[in-house]
């Protein structure tokens, strides 16, 4: 057992290291794309200028000077500060510096946007939105995962029945993305039936008691979660049912049946267990596309998460926030991949015991 854990740990650390390397490359690519038009330089330049202005304005000795003299001093100071910040260095050196800033999410100040607490630090704005995104998508992901596994197993049991054929023929309904169903659901439940809110996180003004607050958040989550559910359930049912069917036609399942094991035990030990790794992989791919789709879905539902933030940043043309959102999405995807890698390792005995066989 301890041996296993150790192996798992070493596997995990090797994977984390490799992934970290990939994340660095990904962030570097994002920064290169962002800087093609010199935008990273511009962000930095405006930051320097603001700093210089503030120090010069705050200096009482300089306040008596005429505007033109002040201007000259400002220009000179900005020039010095720029050189100090390395804006005269070649792009390679600068890009590495931006990379470090990117990895630490240090994007300085937003141009126009502020966080709800009033700060204009890009990092704080991003981190403030993160929990909302995690709440919505975590809930939706888990719901889809468990419902799909449960029903896919049930469908594979009833292979060829009407309900099975129906669910297979409904699979194309998963083609439209989540936001598309979101709009349709908003039209139906908010505009037409007026049962649920159009969007947002809580009622305005927010309820004062905790219970009412939680209930209000849940009410606002129904439609987005439902649209995730509708958009994904048919394709995951279809493909996971197929996985189950493939694995339930294996010889060892026949053997187990011949031994007279109960169908429940067969399902749990001989079908569900070996099918889980491919299912987890397909779930990982689904989650990755969900993170992306979240941008439009949160926009449609006015859900104050990272996706909506990115949309708002586009509306305000707030470049530091846009670049920051890109990087944080890269991180989210990397964490998803790592988490599912870990799950995969824990589920798949070939990975878990791989080292043991070699030694």
């Amino acid at each position, binding site marked *: 057992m301890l041996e296993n854990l150790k192996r798992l740990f070493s596997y995990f650390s090797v994977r984390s290291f490799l992934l970290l390397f990939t994340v660095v490359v990904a962030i570097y690519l*994002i920064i290169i794309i962002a800087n093609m038009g010199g935008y990273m330089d511009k962000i930095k330049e405006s930051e320097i200028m603001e700093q210089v202005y503030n120090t010069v304005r705050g200096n009482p000795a300089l306040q008596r000077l005429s505007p033109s003299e002040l201007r000259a001093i400002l220009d000179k100071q900005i020039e010095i500060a720029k050189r100090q910040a390395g804006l005269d260095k070649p792009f390679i050196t600068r890009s590495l510096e931006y990379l470090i800033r990117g990895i630490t999410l240090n994007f300085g100040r937003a141009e126009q946007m502020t966080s709800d607490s009033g700060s204009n630090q890009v990092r704080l704005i991003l981190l403030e939105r993160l929990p909302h995104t995690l709440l919505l998508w975590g809930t939706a992901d888990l719901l889809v995962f468990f419902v799909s596994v449960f029903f896919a197993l049930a469908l594979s049991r009833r292979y060829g029945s009407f309900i099975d054929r129906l669910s297979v023929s409904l699979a194309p309904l998963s083609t*439209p993305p989540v936001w598309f169903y979101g709009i349709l659901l908003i*039209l139906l439940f*908010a505009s*037409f039936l007026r049962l649920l809110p159009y969007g947002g996180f809580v009622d305005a003004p927010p309820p004062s008691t905790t219970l009412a607050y939680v209930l209000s958040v849940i009410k606002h989550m129904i439609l987005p979660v439902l649209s995730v559910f509708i958009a994904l359930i048919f394709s995951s049912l279809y493909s996971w049912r197929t996985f189950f069917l493939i694995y339930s036609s294996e010889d060892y399942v026949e053997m187990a049946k011949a031994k007279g094991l109960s169908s429940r035990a067969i399902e749990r030990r001989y079908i569900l267990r070996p099918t889980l790794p491919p299912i987890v992989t397909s779930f990982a791919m689904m989650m990755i596309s969900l*993170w*992306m*789709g979240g941008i439009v879905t949160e926009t449609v539902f006015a859900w104050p998460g990272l996706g909506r933030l990115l949309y708002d940043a586009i509306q305000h043309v707030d470049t530091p926030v846009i670049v920051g959102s890109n990087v944080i*999405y890269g991180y989210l995807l990397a964490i998803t991949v790592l988490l599912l890698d870990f799950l995969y390792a824990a589920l798949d005995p070939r990975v878990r015991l791989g080292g043991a066989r070699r030694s």
Partner: protein
Amino acid sequence: MMGFWAVFAELRRHPSAMVGLVIIFLLLVMSIYAVIRIPYSEAVRLWRAGEVVWLENPRNAAPKWYNWFGAGLPETIKIETAAAERTEERVGESTKRVTYRLAFDFPYKRFPQELALFFTSTYTTVPPQLVLSWRTPDGREIPLGTRTVRGVERYVLSGDSTLLRRLGRAPEESLFSDPKNPEQALSGRYELVMDVYTFEPGASLSAKFIVYGRVYGWAGTDHLRRDLSIGLLWGAPIAVAFGFTAAVGIALIQFILSGIGAWFGGALDILIDRLTELRMILPLLPILILVGMLWSRSIWVILATLLMYGSIGGYKTYRAMFLQAREAPYIEAAKAYGAGNFRIVFRYLLPRLIPVLIPSFVLAIPDYVFLEASLAVLGIGDPILPTWGKIINDAYSMGAHFKGLYYWLLEPAALLMITGLGFAMIGFTLDRIFNPRLRSL
């Protein structure tokens, strides 16, 4: 390997694939019709030229077929002085009075949306003057005031605050309202009487009176009075072209690169592993947004970015199959007669596995169609071309869902949905035909 007809015969056994084929056929017909009927430059002009082109359309009008369901929405009525009853009278030395009776039938119970007059006058020094009055079907006469018309003018009666104050209610309502039931329009024959006074021998005035309705065309109009049918029609060729190019391009790039990777193997394998992971971590939509924001929103730039993104990774899909095919005897034979590496890859390895490519690329087409729509909904749509996604974006940002303008959202949404389903239905069936593992299931 299956021939085209064998595949087609197989497809015919699946009703959903046939539905998909019919949908795609109709979509292609619609695209060809759109491109032939409204040439590209004309479509851009009709969609982007500004108010001048759309001025005579009602704003946010519902499609005409709303009336089939008993909505009873008035249509737009246009009457020109050239076609109206005309009486001329000389009242002074060089002063002339021409009276036009612009008569029209108004068979609706709902009020029109707006009233406007478009004038064109010619004169040298003294502009023509006119006295307007209104005659209702029950014989009442309502004076509407006088105007001087200099050159080309537009007079929006609905926006005239003096008229509004005098009538005590929006002109398009008060002029049409039934005295017995003020909330309803009185149907019947109305007349706008224009007494035009010209003070010079050559002076003249012509006018067009527009009673804006609440329905327009088969698709309705948007907040800018644009005819939605143009955007919806032109959305089809753009969606098909974009989805098809992106799907085929990316599938081909990945296919060829993974074939090469599988053939050469070795260090390339490790690189491919890393690249596949890199692509999983690179956030596609945010990157497209970044490109759209900082560089260009043109649909072609987005397409190029997509192709570049597609060529980074995604090789694993076809890898296993290539590794298997690599060991096939006919490859062995090719090696034996001394075929070069690239000859083997491009002549023997790739063609062999093309059937595997087809379902996945058919299934990818709607994904890219919806990706374009996603970008448009975020406000990063192409700045010139009309697309379905952009119509949804317009509708959503103008609050169509709050105002009950459902057609505005549902028409492009329905077209997107039907397109997506068409390709997906064929893709899923092809997948079952070409993928032997699924075939028995």
